[in-house]
């Protein structure tokens, strides 16, 4: 945050998004280079949509500062607020909001027409976009005649056709069913890769963020709690929310060499020595479950009670309550073999070398 005043010339978008409404307040700083894709990841109510609205100029009265390509769009201190229609943005709304009385071609041509291109030229561009998103021949269809995936692609084309500097995607895949989502996500990634401007993707889906973005900003309750590359965020979560999203056990504690005393009670031994406050991460599949105290090489063994059993892909995920609590993935055979059920007392073990540790 301290670097907010130092403008980074390489960034196309510099934004300090500030808004206070009732008892919710948002204060998030984003920097995106040209061609960069930033995912704003967070739970419902974290302020993601508010952030998008500020960037699009759709939120009246806020204390934000937004600069795009060296031009100031918002500056609360000098009272600058460029109206939405004068911002070079493209927005894909969660439910797309395609104009129902216009066909796919005219939906895509709309932004070009609004900026003064003549009808024939705008339609030619729209047709080339239809081809780019794989919807050749669908130009005459109204939105009601398009599937969810097709409507999504029209919405993307509509947002990109006027070649905006800033592309905003609000939960772009949330309205799709699981089967369609995978294909559309892959297509979307390609369109974003070809896009020269800056992109902000708002999502609460970790996979969307990991696949689409090259920079992830995690926000909770209006504040940035973690940011970094998808690899950083997925491998080194810093909050319980992120850990849960990426499916990891996250423990917080104080390290003395390879020994870590956990904040919630319990103790773990790691392979890498560190000192001071640390995070320790354990993959659920690296934790083993036993009915008896295990013999063997694991340095970390503790007792816990099974509190939940849930199918999780081709594995079964156990929630176990102990010191510390942990999620454990086991095979279906193991469930039968060990007779695991809610309430069962078990022993958990994890090798020191299977634990990742990094400073808090």
């Amino acid at each position, binding site marked *: 945050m301290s670097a907010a005043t130092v403008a980074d010339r390489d960034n196309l978008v510099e934004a300090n998004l500030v808004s206070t409404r009732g008892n919710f307040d948002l204060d998030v700083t984003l920097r995106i280079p040209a061609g960069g894709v930033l995912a704003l990841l967070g739970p419902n109510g974290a302020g993601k949509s508010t952030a998008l609205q500020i960037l699009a100029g759709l939120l009246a009265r806020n204390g934000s500062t937004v600069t795009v390509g060296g031009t100031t769009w918002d500056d609360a201190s000098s009272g600058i607020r460029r109206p939405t229609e004068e911002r070079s943005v493209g927005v894909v709304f969660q439910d797309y909001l395609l104009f129902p009385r216009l066909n796919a071609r005219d939906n895509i041509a709309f*932004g070009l027409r609004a900026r003064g291109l003549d009808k024939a030229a705008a339609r030619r561009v729209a047709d080339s976009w239809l081809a780019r998103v794989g919807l050749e021949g669908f130009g005459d269809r109204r939105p009601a005649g398009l599937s969810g995936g097709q409507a999504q692609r029209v919405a993307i084309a509509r947002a990109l056709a006027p070649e905006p500097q800033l592309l905003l995607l609000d939960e772009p895949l949330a309205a799709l069913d699981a089967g369609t989502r995978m294909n559309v996500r892959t297509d979307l990634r390609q369109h974003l890769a070809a896009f020269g401007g800056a992109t902000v993707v708002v999502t609460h889906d970790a996979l969307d963020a990991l696949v689409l973005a090259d920079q992830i900003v995690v926000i909770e309750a209006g504040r940035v709690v973690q940011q970094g590359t998808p690899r950083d965020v997925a491998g080194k979560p810093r909050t319980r929310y992120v850990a849960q999203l990426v499916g990891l056990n996250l423990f917080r504690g104080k390290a003395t060499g390879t020994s870590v005393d956990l904040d919630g009670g319990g103790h773990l031994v790691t392979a890498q020595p560190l000192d001071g406050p640390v995070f320790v991460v354990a993959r659920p599949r690296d934790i083993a479950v036993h009915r008896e105290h295990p013999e063997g090489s694991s340095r970390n063994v503790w007792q816990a009670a099974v509190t939940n059993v849930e199918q999780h892909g081709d594995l079964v995920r156990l929630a176990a309550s102990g010191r510390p609590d942990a999620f454990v993935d086991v095979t279906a055979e193991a469930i039968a073999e060990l007779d695991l059920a809610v309430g069962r007392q078990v022993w958990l073990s994890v090798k020191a070398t299977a634990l990742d540790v990094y400073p808090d």
Partner: protein
Amino acid sequence: MTDLAQSLPLVPPHRKVHTPYGIFVPALIGAAFLLLPLIGLLVQAPWRDLPGLIGGQAVRTALRLSLETATSATVVAIILGVPIAWVLARVEFRGRGVVRALVILPLVLPPVAGGIALLLAYGRHGVVGQWLWSTFGISLPFTTVGVVVAETFVAMPFLVVAVEGSLRGLDPRFDQVAATMGASRWFTFRYVTLPMLGPGIAAGAVLCWARALGEFGATITFAGSYPGTTQTMPLQVYLALQDNPDAAIALSLVLLVVSVAILAGLRDRWLRP
């Protein structure tokens, strides 16, 4: 016991409710009450003389005048009424309720009173009429334009109510979408809002037109009844009733046919619950 009660919904969905027999009797009487006059009109109609009665020059002149004035009134109502509906639906301002009440007032005001109010405003000695007369030499009462004014006054609220309803049903986020694509407010109104409002405006316009076509009280008060210039069909029906009842019936029949045609045209919108 409690568990069972909770598992059963209070009213099972999609199940016909038993209607008390006491409801059917007044319902039937009411329907007959509405239907009988129409049947009477059909039975009493002088079918053999019909071509002669409605084919005459006077009737054709009155019918053409009615259609022309009702259509003009509808056009004026669209031009003025759609913006009124927009402001009422989308602009927050103090006293909006009062303005809405005033705009809707002609719906409930007896048309004769409306005609008198029009005379006081737009008559040659009226507040605005005096100025119109002294400045431009224009006098509205007892002219065809006066008929249009009277019909617009009475019929426009129908259009305003219908269009305001459709505007409220529109997702205002479409305006935001258009703005993010660089569309000015006017461009958005022209190419996004108006097309989506189309059906609502059409329905309101038909209602407005039908009301204007049947206008009597305000028209006769404000515009009088001069054949060729202000004597519309309803006025002619009334006058015919005094000396040629058969002609009155025949003319009513023509108006009934026009009304049924309108209903048929709107069946998809209003005849489905």
